[in-house]
């Protein structure tokens, strides 16, 4: 079943075509729309009623209809830029107040039709040109909204560019006050859906790549690495290099890369290591399955090794048969079409709108290194005799802190991204999280994990809601990167110790099943030590026995 989100749509033009396109699009997620009466933008923005019923708001206004001084400029009057900017600031203040009634607000940037030439060759001159002022107005929107974590500006110029010269439709405008052609609305729909998926933590985390005719030109097994088409004075070779550069840029933004290819492993790794034009090096990949087995099976093995679910993955392969096979057997994986022509590969990669993040954190940017460190951990695990020996050898340190200004951004990100080890799967933004944690009967701890291989950073959260000597575990979530290393037990130990000190008599954890959090349920059922009450789908700790000591981990309580 598709996820459904509801939004309030505010505009000073007729948005009905856009709404119809959004509501009738079959791609996930489904959007339920509420359209504020058009032409009454300020009334809607100034109405301070709570908009909690909606998952998001969307504001798309034409600049000349909302910024009066800019309208005068368009009509040939000489208006100082400072006057326009002051009016933009005033508008932004209203929008910011409106955003406080919503979880997220998406605001479309401003643009003008290409055929409005303004002052022609003077149009980019300071204090005169329409284009000059419009650029400043958009930058001002960006500056004013920059510190508001729930407001996102969507670049509408890209939607207009994609539609070309027919983006603005005069006939639709005069007949029904719809300024844009449907091509613009379709682009806007894709971007809005992408934005909703991003803020809901549905972004992809890993790209799984084929090798032959995907990362390089030619069949390695036939031609040898020396004769692959990659780089050099060759337009095909250059196209593959550019594609690899695009992938490397994504890797630098925190998207991890892996390889699944039908090849001899040793031959393929030799090509990756030795070819002088390879942009992607062995250490850029968190893992690989290079053999002659079915690719779906290999993808499953790979994802299992790195603790990611198929919904986090994108698979890129030049071969349509392999793509179809993976789509069929692993429907949760995103398998986009790759163009037949390699010169279009980078464009197709850049058009994928599933890798966005809300606030890139240190943990995001270092994700590949964190996975490589995990590979080292797993290697060590196979060398040691027992799980206990392995855990001890990792020299893990867990640091427990309360929520503060330094960790709120990452904490909110974890709330919105964690799927597998997540008890309640509550999705909260920064302000909601702060508000929740500040209530007197609520306690929330963040968990940082480091060991001799790497600092995994803030990777866990546990929180309590206390009523009459009973503590309800509201959240129990842990990044898949550190699952299965007794961090789960440390988190439970923390709440049990706190409860003992505060005379709490009972701890309850209510489990909310999702399609993705079975690992969490399994942990609670098999390893938590809590009693499971099936009828209530709850786990209970009754203090009859002490929580087992955790000797393999050093715990630092910074609260």
């Amino acid at each position, binding site marked *: 079943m598709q996820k459904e989100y509801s939004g309030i749509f505010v505009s000073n033009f007729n948005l*009905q075509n856009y709404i*119809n396109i959004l*509501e*009738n699009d079959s791609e996930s997620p489904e959007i339920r729309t509420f359209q504020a009466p058009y032409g009454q933008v300020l009334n809607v923005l100034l109405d301070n009623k709570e908009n909690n019923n909606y998952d998001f708001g969307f504001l798309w206004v034409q600049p000349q209809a909302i910024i009066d001084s800019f309208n005068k400029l368009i009509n040939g009057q000489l208006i100082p830029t400072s006057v326009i900017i002051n009016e933009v600031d005033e508008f932004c203040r209203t929008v910011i107040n409106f955003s406080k009634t919503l979880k997220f607000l998406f605001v479309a940037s401003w643009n003008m039709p290409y055929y409005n030439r303004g002052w022609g060759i003077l149009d980019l001159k300071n204090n005169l040109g329409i284009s000059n002022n419009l650029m400043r107005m958009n930058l001002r929107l960006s500056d004013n909204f920059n510190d508001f974590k729930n407001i996102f500006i969507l670049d509408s110029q890209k939607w207009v560019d994609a539609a070309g010269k027919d983006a603005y*439709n005069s006939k*639709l405008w005069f*007949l*029904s006050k719809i300024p844009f052609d449907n091509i613009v609305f379709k682009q806007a729909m894709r971007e809005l859906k992408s934005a909703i998926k991003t803020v809901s933590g549905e972004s992809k985390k890993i790209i799984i790549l084929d090798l032959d005719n995907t990362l390089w030109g030619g069949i390695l097994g036939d031609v040898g690495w020396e004769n692959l088409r990659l780089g050099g004075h060759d337009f095909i070779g250059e196209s593959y290099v550019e594609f690899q550069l695009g992938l490397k840029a994504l890797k630098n933004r925190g998207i991890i890369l892996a390889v699944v290819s039908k090849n001899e492993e040793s031959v393929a790794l030799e090509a990756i290591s030795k070819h002088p034009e390879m942009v992607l090096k062995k250490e850029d990949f968190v893992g690989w399955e290079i053999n002659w087995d079915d690719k779906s099976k290999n993808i499953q093995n790979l994802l299992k090794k790195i603790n990611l679910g198929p919904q986090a993955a994108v698979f890129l392969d030049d071969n349509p048969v392999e793509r179809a096979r993976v789509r069929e057997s692993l429907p949760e994986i995103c398998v986009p079409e790759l163009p037949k022509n390699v010169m279009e590969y980078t464009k197709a990669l850049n058009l994928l709108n599933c890798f966005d993040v809300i606030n890139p954190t240190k943990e995001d940017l270092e994700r590949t290194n964190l996975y490589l460190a995990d590979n080292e951990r797993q290697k060590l695990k196979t060398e040691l005799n027992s799980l206990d020996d392995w855990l001890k050898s990792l020299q893990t340190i867990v640091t427990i802190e309360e929520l503060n200004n330094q960790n709120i951004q990452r904490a909110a990100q974890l709330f919105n991204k964690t799927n597998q080890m997540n008890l309640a799967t509550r999705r909260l933004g920064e302000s909601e999280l702060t508000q929740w944690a500040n209530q007197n009967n609520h306690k929330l701890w963040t968990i940082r994990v480091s060991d001799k291989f790497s600092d995994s950073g803030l990777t866990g959260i546990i929180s309590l809601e206390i009523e009459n000597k009973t503590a309800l575990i509201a959240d129990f979530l842990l990044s898949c990167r550190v699952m299965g290393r007794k961090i789960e037990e440390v988190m439970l130990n923390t709440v049990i110790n706190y409860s003992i000190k505060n005379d709490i008599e009972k701890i309850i954890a209510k489990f909310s099943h999702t399609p993705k959090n079975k690992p969490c349920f399994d942990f609670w059922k098999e390893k938590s030590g809590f009693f499971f009450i099936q009828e209530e789908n709850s786990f209970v700790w009754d203090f009859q026995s002490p929580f087992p000591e955790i000797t393999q981990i050093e715990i630092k309580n910074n609260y």
Partner: protein
Amino acid sequence: MKEEIIKIILKTCAELNEQLKNKIDISKRENTELYGNNGVIDSLGLVNLIVSIETEIELKYGKSLILADGTSFPMNSSPFRTVNTFANYIVDLLNQKSF
């Protein structure tokens, strides 16, 4: 010419269906009901249909028509009732207009 115009209208209806909850049943070909008592499109749907058909006609015949010129038609004789009446209206306009 009328056959070509019917094709254009049906193609445009199919495109419009992408954004309609209640789809236009184009299987009835020229007898497809559009706007009015038995039609499924509302006034905005009609505007979208008219604008798209004008564009298609201009591309195909190089002639610029204004299909909604502000004249109001009685519902029982509106040219937008069915694909057939719409096609007749367009053919008439194309024949009337000297280009």
